[in-house]
C-alpha cells in the first residue's frame, strides 16, 4: 500500500468516527458517498479531519437527531411539537414568576394573616412552593422529551403526554383551590397559559395518533 493510500485510509477512518454522530439510517444511506466527498475535498497528504468539516458534521448530526422526522403533510403533529416546545418555555417562565413573586405574595399573606411575620410567611411559602420549584424544570424537560418523541413517532409519546397533562391539570386545580388567584395571580395566569398550550398540543397529538392507527 502506498503512502497516499495509507493517508486516505487514515483520514477516512478518522472521519468515520465523526459520522457516528449521525442517525444510523442516515449513515446507511449516505456514509459511503459522504466519505468520498470528504476525501475528495481534502488536501494532499492530509491525515486529520479538517476542523470546519468536523464542526459541520457534528452540528448537522445533532440537528438531524433533534429535528422532527416527519413529512411536511404531518402539519397537526408538527404544530403539536411546536406547542410542546412552547409549553417547556412557559414552564421556565412559571419558575421565574414563582421566584420573582415570593416577596409580594408573602406581603399579602402578612396582611391577611396577622399572626405571620414577613420572614415566617416567606419561609412557609418557599416550603410550600418547593415541589413546584423543583417540578417546573423537570416538567419543562418532560415537554421537550415528548416533543422529540412525537417528532420521531415513538409509540409511547401520546400516552406519556396525556399523563403529564393530567399531572399539570391536578397541580393547577390544587393551586386554584388553595386561593392562589388571590395571592399569586401572575403564577396562576402563566399556569393557565401552560395548561391551555399543553391541552391543544395533546388534542393535536391524539388526533394524529388516531389517524395513524385508522
Amino acid at each position, binding site marked *: 500500500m502506498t503512502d497516499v493510500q495509507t493517508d486516505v485510509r487514515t483520514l477516512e477512518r478518522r472521519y468515520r468516527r465523526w459520522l457516528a454522530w449521525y442517525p444510523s439510517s442516515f449513515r446507511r444511506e*449516505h456514509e459511503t*458517498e*459522504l466519505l468520498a466527498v470528504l476525501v475528495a475535498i481534502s488536501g494532499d497528504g492530509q491525515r486529520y479531519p479538517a476542523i470546519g*468539516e468536523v464542526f459541520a458534521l457534528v*452540528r448537522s448530526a445533532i440537528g438531524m437527531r433533534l429535528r422532527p422526522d416527519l*413529512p411536511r403533510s404531518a402539519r397537526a403533529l408538527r404544530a403539536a411539537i411546536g406547542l410542546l416546545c412552547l409549553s417547556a418555555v412557559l414552564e421556565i417562565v412559571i419558575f421565574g414568576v414563582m421566584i420573582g413573586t415570593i416577596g409580594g405574595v408573602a406581603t399579602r399573606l402578612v396582611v391577611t394573616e396577622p399572626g405571620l411575620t414577613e420572614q415566617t410567611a416567606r419561609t412557609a411559602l418557599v416550603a410550600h412552593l418547593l415541589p413546584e420549584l423543583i417540578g417546573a424544570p423537570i416538567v419543562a424537560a418532560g415537554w421537550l422529551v415528548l416533543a422529540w418523541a412525537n417528532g420521531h413517532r415513538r409509540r409511547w409519546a401520546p400516552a406519556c403526554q396525556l399523563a403529564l397533562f393530567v399531572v399539570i391539570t391536578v397541580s393547577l386545580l390544587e393551586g386554584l383551590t388553595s386561593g392562589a388567584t388571590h395571592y399569586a395571580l401572575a403564577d396562576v395566569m402563566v399556569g393557565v397559559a401552560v395548561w391551555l398550550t399543553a391541552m391543544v398540543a395533546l388534542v393535536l397529538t391524539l388526533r394524529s395518533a388516531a389517524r395513524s392507527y385508522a
Partner: protein
Amino acid sequence: MHEATFLVLTSLAGGPQHGYAILADIAEMSGDRVRLRAGTLYTALDRLRGDGLIEVAKEQVVDGRLRRYYRLTPQGSQTLADEAARLRSNATVALRRLGLGSPELGGA
C-alpha cells in the same frame, strides 16, 4: 427557504450532479461567497429527498467509491421556480426603492 437549500436546488436545475460537483458549483455560482461543508450538503440532500424535491438519478462506482447523482423532481423544480420568483419580486421592490432598478430583474 435557506440560502443553502436554494443554491443546492439551483445547482441541480442545470442537470443531475453528484455531491462534490454540487459543492464546487455552489462555490462558483456564489463567487466563492458560499462554501458549503460536506456534512451540511448531505444533511440538506437527505432532507430534500425526504421532502420529495430531489431524487437519485443514477449511481456510479468511480475508483472503488460510490458516486450518487441527484436531480430535481417536478415538485422540486416548481418549488425552486416559486422561490426564485419570490426572491426576484422582493429584489425588484428593493432596487426600485433604492433608485437602482435593474432591467434584468424586471424593475425600471
